[in-house]
């Protein structure tokens, strides 16, 4: 029942967000974990994640080189083709040089659509960066208020924070059930991804139902527990493939996973300041430095899932993740944990991926037994 609903939402992500617009909601597309959704939500809008697509790029190639990567190219292509016309606006950031370029391109080529920019530092340490991080967030609020035509109401923001925190707690619960194998990996992934495409209130309801029913669909005990890492995993065929190869995901630190939802906002004190604090302190993404807190999150997640190996699903041209992989691989090696990197361009080359995953699973199983 719930799985059917998740399937429907994820089978056509854009259509799911279009439906929200048809319902009269002001829908805002964004694509970075440093976009403070609480502010958008509190302004009465619905933030949804721009997932991009694996579709053939047509118009965007006149503006972006191939090495800008599939995510930015496909999002811009959708924008140019009018496929995002139902969105009231788009919020971009400096999460990569390509996504930052997208902001310039959006302003130049899609002038009818509001585009906001979250321009926070990449360096998450030092007094100055902390102050600038805060003021960049405040500038984003100003952009939102100008666009929304009213100011951000602290009471609304408190309500939004509560909704988002509940969402995070439920997702964390799902992650712990994944670790104890009381929730199927693919159901877990669907549950997380669907949350990017609907109002969080509705998602909370769905998660509650899902968690109530959890415990019935356990993964087979002989499946090898693995940790999955990477900036984004939207290819829903990957986890079934993993299972066919004799393994399952028992933990993850995906950008479209636990890195997104792990940290809560404190519900006491000034709500604006608390939201800013949360984003400053959250598990950092690969495009933020220092990387140590991310490594700690990675290790902790891997430990709770009792993973025997790690697979890094790295988007082609996602330079930040590509630099990190050899570092994480070597650190894991020192702990006796093998790892594999799979290159993705949204979709994992399935036959090639299957062979590589199969070989990897066999090697890890050989070490474990």
């Amino acid at each position, binding site marked *: 029942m719930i799985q059917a609903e998740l399937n429907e939402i994820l089978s056509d992500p854009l259509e799911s967000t279009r439906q929200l617009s048809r319902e009269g909601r002001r829908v805002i597309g964004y694509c970075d974990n440093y976009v403070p959704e609480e502010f958008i939500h509190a302004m009465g809008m619905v933030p949804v994640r721009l997932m991009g697509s694996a579709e053939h790029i047509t118009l965007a190639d006149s503006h972006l080189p191939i090495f800008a990567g599939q995510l930015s190219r496909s999002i811009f292509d959708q924008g140019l083709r009018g496929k995002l016309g139902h969105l009231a606006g788009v919020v971009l950031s400096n999460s*990569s040089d390509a996504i930052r370029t997208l902001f310039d391109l959006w302003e130049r080529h899609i002038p009818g659509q509001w585009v906001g920019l979250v321009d926070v530092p990449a360096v998450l340490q030092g007094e100055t960066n902390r102050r600038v991080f805060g003021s960049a967030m405040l500038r984003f609020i100003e952009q939102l208020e100008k666009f929304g035509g009213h100011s951000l109401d602290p009471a609304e923001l408190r309500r939004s924070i509560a909704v988002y925190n509940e969402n995070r707690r439920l997702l964390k619960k799902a992650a712990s059930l994944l670790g104890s194998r009381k929730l199927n990996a693919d159901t877990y992934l669907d549950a997380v991804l669907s949350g990017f495409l609907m109002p969080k209130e509705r998602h909370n309801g769905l998660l509650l139902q899902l968690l109530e029913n959890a415990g019935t669909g356990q993964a087979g005990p002989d499946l090898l527990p693995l940790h999955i890492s990477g900036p984004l995993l939207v290819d829903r065929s990957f986890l079934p493939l993993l299972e066919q190869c004799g393994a399952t995901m028992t933990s993850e630190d995906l950008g479209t996973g636990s890195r997104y939802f792990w940290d809560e906002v404190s519900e006491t004190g000034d709500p604006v300041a608390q939201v800013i604090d949360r984003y400053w302190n959250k598990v950092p993404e690969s495009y933020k430095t220092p990387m140590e807190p991310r490594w700690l999150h990675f290790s902790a997640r891997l430990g709770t899932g009792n993973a025997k190996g790690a697979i890094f699903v790295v988007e082609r041209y996602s330079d930040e993740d590509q630099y990190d992989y050899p570092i994480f691989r070597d650190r894991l090696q020192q702990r006796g944990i093998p790892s594999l990197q799979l290159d993705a361009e949204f979709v994992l080359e399935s036959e090639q991926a299957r062979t590589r995953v199969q070989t990897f699973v066999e090697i890890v199983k050989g070490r474990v037994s």
Partner: protein
Amino acid sequence: MSTQTKKGRALNSSYQAGNILKEYWEDAARHQAEGRPIAWVSGNVPIELFWSMGVFPVYPENYSAIIASIQRAQEFCEEAEQRGFSNDLCSYSRVNLGIILGKGIKDPGLPFGGIPRPDMLITTRIPCLIQVKWWEAVREFFKVPLFVVDATMIDLPVKEHQRQHYLGQIRELIPIMESKLGVRFQEDKFLEALKLSDEAAGLWLDLLDTRAAVPSPVGSREMCGNVFPLVAMLGSSRPIAFFKQLLEEARECVKAGKGAVENEKIRLGWDNIPMWYNLKFFSDVEDQNIIFTYETYLKYVWGGRMDLSDPWTAFANKHLDVWLNYSIDQRVRTLLSDIPKFKLDGFVFHENHSCKRFAMGQKDAAVAIQEKLGVPSLFIHSDMADPRAFSEGQSRVKMEAFIELLQAKKK
């Protein structure tokens, strides 16, 4: 109109460039041997600070370019790739990581006896995010302190909050350098370094301006060889004498109507870092009465003028005002004003697989200069250091067709 010989340097002083480069790397080794601190730095770091504090700024990027120019980049790129670094990553970083993780930075087979070991790593996001990630990978190996100077992209003029962001971090960097490297910041020395930097940058920019003359006194190949002191030595006195001589010679050439190429017919601009392993690409073109006389890489990436009546503001402005840190609109505006000034007939965009931030926005710029100025452009897909990304045949065919088009347009 007189001409100079085709194969030699157009400006005699350009022959000094190789010596300056050699001296720099030898000085770096000596500095370390004497027990003084070395920082590995990257493009657009606050260079004047290092020279004024007695910290030798070592540029692995420059070293990678040297490795590329002696046709050895591929072996080090492959070394890095074997160790898990993707071949899509910046080739300067792959060369550097290949050296570090392969036979090491002291391998006697390396130019200038290798690269001195860093006592500290300092980088910045001004030109790109990649530098930050590259330095994190280097830190993993050397386990030395790392400092990153952050910055967001700009539209000119630089905004006050961006300036304060920059300066705030510099104020944090100084005591860290003092405590980690055992050096001392003295404002008078720093201001002196700014003066030297500004003087050198002024000479360099004047030199570039002489190239607006028809015929142009010096082409891209030669100027790419001359830029190094501007990259690595601003704040020291060394670049000043060199640039002064280059400028004097260039001015004389302009006065005498002496061009760098015979019978100059077509003038071109270049965007992005050159292909260091194939600077011949420029000279092959220049053999055909064509001159590359403008480069964004040489004009807007390294040296900028500073109004030293307000030195800290000027220092921040200068370091943030960098092509790679420009928005697309800013890049377009700049090209629209420079192309007529340099009387360019065409523009070549190097779609550099490695320096992605440089390459973003090129397509919009090409459309803008065609639409607004009627100046056509050509895209060459390649890489600044990794020769595997360069297709000689394809590039030559494209360049020939482009030249034909420009010649037909000129008739």
